[in-house]
């Protein structure tokens, strides 16, 4: 056998070729004749023979592969996966590659698939719908429903990752869940009743989540519940039945037509079988069947193994046996029934514990009439939890607390400091807010709390309040005072009431009240249940939520760090921990602890990727947190770039993402405004405000912040009158129910704008008021407080009242009281600048130079400093040099270098001229 060309040969050959190619044919021949070994010479000879006679260096050598092009066309025109050829392992669908066939059903095949692009390790389950079953409108329906189902992100639900149609075949890409079905798992591990109920609770919570998104499962059964290696349940096939349904109604026979496989009648609700309207009640029914089966090992109606017709009849007309009485314990293993469904979970060893309450829960879910079942999955869950814990449980937010909050919020707006409609309260509230069913449910589960709040609300009798109709706040305030004594013997209820009230006040933006309540709650839960108990963690998160709402990074850090540690200890859901980590990244950044923020960012990003694909919205949204970090690091262009990179992701956001898209726009505008980009116009900012208000209602926090940002930018550009106008619009939009303390920062910024715009009437008094009011408090701390105080200092300086400015500045210089401030380089540089201006105003121009230099040095130390304030700081320094009789040429030259090219005109340009001119410059303090 010939041996082919070896690498070593080639080296020699290549070199010889190059040499001999240069030579004339005759000389070549001579060489070839003597070359050894002969095989080499032969090759060389052949190769050289391929060269053209005359090497025309300008001719173009062609490589032609005839037929290649036509074949390429043919290959590209073929569909990868045709509707007629059977799918094979290795076939590609979008970015997935089929790996192994998992099963085949009436609907089509289910394959396990892997990512074809190697971007990340991922598996999915792909349902290939049979080509012949696909109706014409299927693809269109897929597209509509895909967005809907794609929103179902819940740890207990196998997500639908993608859906589409390729080459005439519709497919669904679902999260792949290795593990066992629920019945298998229960049977294999021989779980007792309590464990089974806990599993079902997980399932129910997933269903509840989907219901909240208006998605009904319609095919709940143990076969659709996978339990993974960690023992967590995941619901499969969510909404698939809904996807395939033509109309709002679902009739069994229709489904047969479409899917070729009927619903399992054993778990189907009566109305599903008869073809009437199907809704959340049908899912609740199915959950009831599963509960019954888990508790007893048997189906409530009929038996496994009966014919379809017999089963249907049993469901429609049968009566369920009491769980504890059923003694058909033998029929629990082995046989697979007619529908191909597996055998059941088997009877639990402690089935008798199901007597009474648990039976009743199942019975209520299994009522033939949908209207008589639990109205919501939440209520079902409550009862199960009640049974599990054997004591009153705090009622679930969605059901009750949420309603109270909503109601109170609606009516607090009406109240607006005036009276509240108590006819509504006493008469309407009891009825509309608490429907009989809920009242009973609430009462059963949490009698003490219910009683308390019922009394509270019915105590609105004017006679009890000195003859006037009290508003909600007054009511709550009054009862709040009673809490400690009222519940002295019942700390558990006390805790629950504190939680409700804390959340209520938070919703009303009365953080001044919510915070002490939340603090009490944290202390109480710690005392009752310890640091790591669920209730304590909930309390900490409430408190943390308040910190975030108030933009109080110090609080977020102080509470967030131990909370995160606790969550990690308890191996809480990754998504919960992530939420907290995001907040900490931003909090560290805002507190000036950039190293900690960077560390947290680096730790968190891989965790994000564990949960979300790198290209998903959630993963990309992570960059908003990094944005805050970059700002804090003085990397302005990098921050801008992050937001720009995110733009495609938010180009056409789905409804549930619009809020985030607006955030991104706001951040981008901020970055671009600071960089002087032409896109960051006033109009653009106003548009963002308008869009926020359209989405979230007038006066919401986001549009407030956007307005404040716009005003700040206008101030930096010296357009103080325009800033004043924005502040006025901002003030009008605020709800007067907001606590006065929250308005202080806005008042301070507005004051500065007014003073610099020349509206000085009453300003001095306002400065004093604000100085007094701006004492650090739980409601107003950290950088927000510093910025607000700084605005007051500047306003005082602009008014040429160094006495007032000094008083306002004093708290910022109290190092002991604000230890965190020492580490905040950016804020320290600002304080330095204010100190400098104050000294200058007091006549000590020489002394003012050093602090002003510090501010300049701060900018010099940043990788991508903000251009405008930097230039302003330089001019500030130049002014002091001038007044101190020092040479200013260098400083002015530097200022000219620093002046942003994109800046049109700015009041500080006049300062620059004044510094250079022989006559004494004017007063510019407070304008930098």
């Amino acid at each position, binding site marked *: *056998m*010939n*041996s*082919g*060309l*070896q*690498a070593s040969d*080639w080296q020699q050959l*290549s070199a010889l*070729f*190059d040499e001999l*190619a240069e030579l004339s044919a005759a000389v070549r021949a001579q060489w070839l004749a003597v070359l050894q070994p002969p095989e080499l010479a032969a*090759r060389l000879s*052949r*190769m*050289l023979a*391929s*060269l*053209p*006679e005359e*090497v*025309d*260096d*300008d*001719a*173009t*050598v*062609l*490589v*032609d*592969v*005839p*037929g*290649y*092009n*036509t*074949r*390429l*066309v*043919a*290959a*590209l*025109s*073929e569909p990868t996966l045709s509707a007629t*050829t059977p799918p094979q392992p290795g076939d*590609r669908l979008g*970015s997935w590659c089929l790996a192994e066939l998992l099963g085949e059903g009436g609907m089509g095949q289910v394959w396990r698939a892997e990512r*074809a*692009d*190697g*971007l990340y390790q991922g598996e999915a389950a792909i349902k290939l719908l049979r080509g012949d079953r696909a109706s014409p409108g299927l693809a269109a329906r897929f597209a509509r429903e895909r967005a809907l189902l794609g929103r179902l992100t819940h740890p207990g639900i196998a997500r639908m990752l993608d859906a589409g149609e390729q080459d005439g075949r519709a497919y669904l890409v679902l999260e792949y869940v290795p593990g066992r079905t629920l019945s298998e798992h229960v049977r294999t591990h021989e779980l007792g009743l309590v464990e089974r109920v806990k599993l079902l609770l997980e399932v129910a919570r997933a269903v509840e989540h989907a219901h909240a998104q208006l998605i009904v499962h319609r095919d709940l059964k143990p076969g659709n519940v996978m339990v993974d290696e960690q023992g967590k349940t995941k619901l499969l096939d969510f909404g698939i039945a809904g996807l395939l349904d033509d109309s709002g109604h679902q009739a069994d026979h229709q489904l047969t037509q479409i899917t070729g496989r009927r619903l399992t009648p054993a778990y189907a609700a009566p109305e599903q079988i008869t073809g009437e309207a199907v809704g959340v009640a049908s899912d609740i029914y199915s959950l009831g069947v599963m509960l019954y089966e888990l508790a007893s090992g048997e189906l409530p109606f009929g038996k496994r193994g009966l014919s379809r017709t017999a089963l249907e009849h049993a469901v429609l007309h049968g009566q369920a046996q009491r769980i504890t009485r059923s003694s058909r314990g033998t029929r629990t293993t082995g046989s697979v029934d007619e529908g191909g469904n597996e055998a059941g979970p088997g009877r639990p060893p402690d089935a008798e514990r199901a007597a009474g309450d648990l039976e009743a829960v199942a019975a209520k879910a299994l009522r033939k009439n949908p209207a008589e079942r639990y109205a919501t999955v939440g209520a079902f869950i409550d009862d199960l939890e009640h049974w599990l814990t054997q004591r009153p449980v705090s009622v679930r937010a969605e059901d009750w607390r949420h309603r109270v909050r909503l109601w109170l919020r609606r009516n607090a707006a009406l109240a607006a400091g005036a009276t509240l409609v108590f006819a509504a309260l006493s008469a309407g509230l009891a009825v509309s807010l608490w429907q009989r069913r809920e009242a009973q449910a609430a009462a059963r589960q949490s009698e003490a709390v219910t009683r308390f709040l019922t009394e509270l609300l019915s105590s609105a009798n004017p006679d009890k309040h000195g003859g006037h109709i009290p508003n909600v706040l007054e009511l709550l305030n009054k009862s709040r005072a009673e809490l400690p004594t009222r519940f002295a013997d019942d700390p558990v209820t006390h805790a629950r009431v504190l939680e409700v009230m804390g959340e209520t006040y938070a919703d009303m933006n009365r953080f001044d009240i919510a915070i002490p309540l939340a603090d009490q709650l944290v202390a109480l839960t710690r005392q009752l249940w310890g640091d790591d108990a669920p209730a304590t963690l909930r309390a900490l998160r409430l408190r943390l939520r308040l910190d975030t709402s108030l933009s109080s990074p110090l609080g977020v850090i102080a509470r967030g760090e131990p909370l995160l540690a606790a969550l990690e200890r308890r191996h809480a859901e990754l998504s919960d921990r992530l939420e907290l980590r995001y907040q900490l990244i931003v909090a560290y950044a805002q507190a000036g602890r950039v190293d900690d923020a960077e560390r947290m960012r680096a730790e968190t990003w891989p965790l994000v990727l564990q949960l979300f694909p*790198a*290209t998903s919205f959630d993963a990309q949204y992570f960059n908003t947190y990094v944005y805050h970090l970059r700002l804090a690091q003085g990397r302005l262009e990098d921050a801008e770039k992050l937001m720009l*990179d995110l733009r*495609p*992701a938010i180009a056409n956001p789905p409804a549930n993402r619009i809020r985030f898209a607006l955030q991104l726009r706001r951040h981008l505008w901020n970055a671009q405004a600071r960089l002087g980009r032409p896109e960051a116009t006033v109009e653009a900012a106003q548009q963002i405000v308008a869009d926020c208000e359209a989405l979230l209602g007038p006066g919401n926090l986001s549009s407030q912040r956007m307005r404040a940002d716009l005003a700040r930018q206008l101030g930096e550009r010296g357009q103080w009158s325009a800033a004043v106008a924005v502040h006025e619009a901002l003030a009008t939009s605020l709800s007067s129910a907001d606590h006065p303390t929250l308005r202080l920062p806005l008042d301070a910024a507005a004051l500065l704008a007014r003073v610099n715009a020349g509206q000085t009437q009453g300003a001095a008094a306002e400065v004093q008021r604000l100085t007094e009011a701006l004492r650090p408090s739980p409601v107003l701390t950290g950088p927000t407080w510093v910025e607000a105080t700084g605005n007051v200092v500047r306003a005082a300086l602009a008014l040429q009242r160094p006495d007032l400015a000094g008083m306002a500045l004093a708290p910022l210089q109290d190092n002991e009281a604000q230890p965190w401030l020492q580490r905040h380089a950016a804020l320290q540089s600002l304080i330095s600048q204010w100190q400098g201006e104050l000294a200058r105003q007091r006549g000590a121009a020489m002394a003012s130079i050093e602090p002003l230099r510090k501010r300049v040095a701060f900018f010099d130390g940043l990788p991508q400093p903000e251009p405008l304030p930097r230039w302003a700081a330089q001019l500030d320094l130049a002014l002091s040099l001038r007044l101190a009789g020092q040479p200013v040429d260098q400083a002015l030259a530097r200022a000219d270098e620093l002046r942003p090219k994109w800046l049109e005109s700015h009041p500080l340009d006049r300062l620059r001229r004044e510094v250079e001119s022989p006559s004494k410059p004017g007063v510019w303090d407070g304008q930098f």
Partner: protein
Amino acid sequence: MTPSAQQPAITELLAGTSRGDAASLQQLYAVLYPEIKRVARVRLAQSGPNGRVAGLDTTALVHEGFLRMADQQGLQGETRGQFFAYVGRVLRSVVIDHLRTEHRDKRGGDAILVTLSAASDVAAVQSQAVDMIGLDQALERMRALDNGLYELIEMIGFAGLSIAEVATLRGLSTRSINRELLKARALLQELLGDPPNSVY
């Protein structure tokens, strides 16, 4: 997939492949394959009925589709060359895959002629008729022997680049490229001529 998400992958993978990292190679292929195919298909669709009949003008493909891709990835110089060599390789494998599904991939079936011709006034040198698989194998061998020459053939023969474009890419004159190409052609011819069961 957004460009920014793709970017690290491709350039890193290209670097890995140049180091001879097998895993990078595999991954690169997997990353590019669907993308290139998609681009090619789009171009085909855009070329209208004429395109299908006359055969895809791979040159046009390069210009519009892959150039953009290369620019998006920020590919320069060596990696740009590697990229285009890959394009050629992928397109060729698209053809082979297709032949496979039509069961026309058997050795000896549907022979394809590889004509390494020169300018019109120079006699064409025709290789032995060899099927696509054989060609693929020969090219594979070539890559192992001399990557530079291999890339040339891929780029010019299968990815549709012009001599001028390759010259720019490699920072050489068209003359140099021409000469290299002559050598590459000669080598390929040798490899094609080697018996199929040769031991390498």
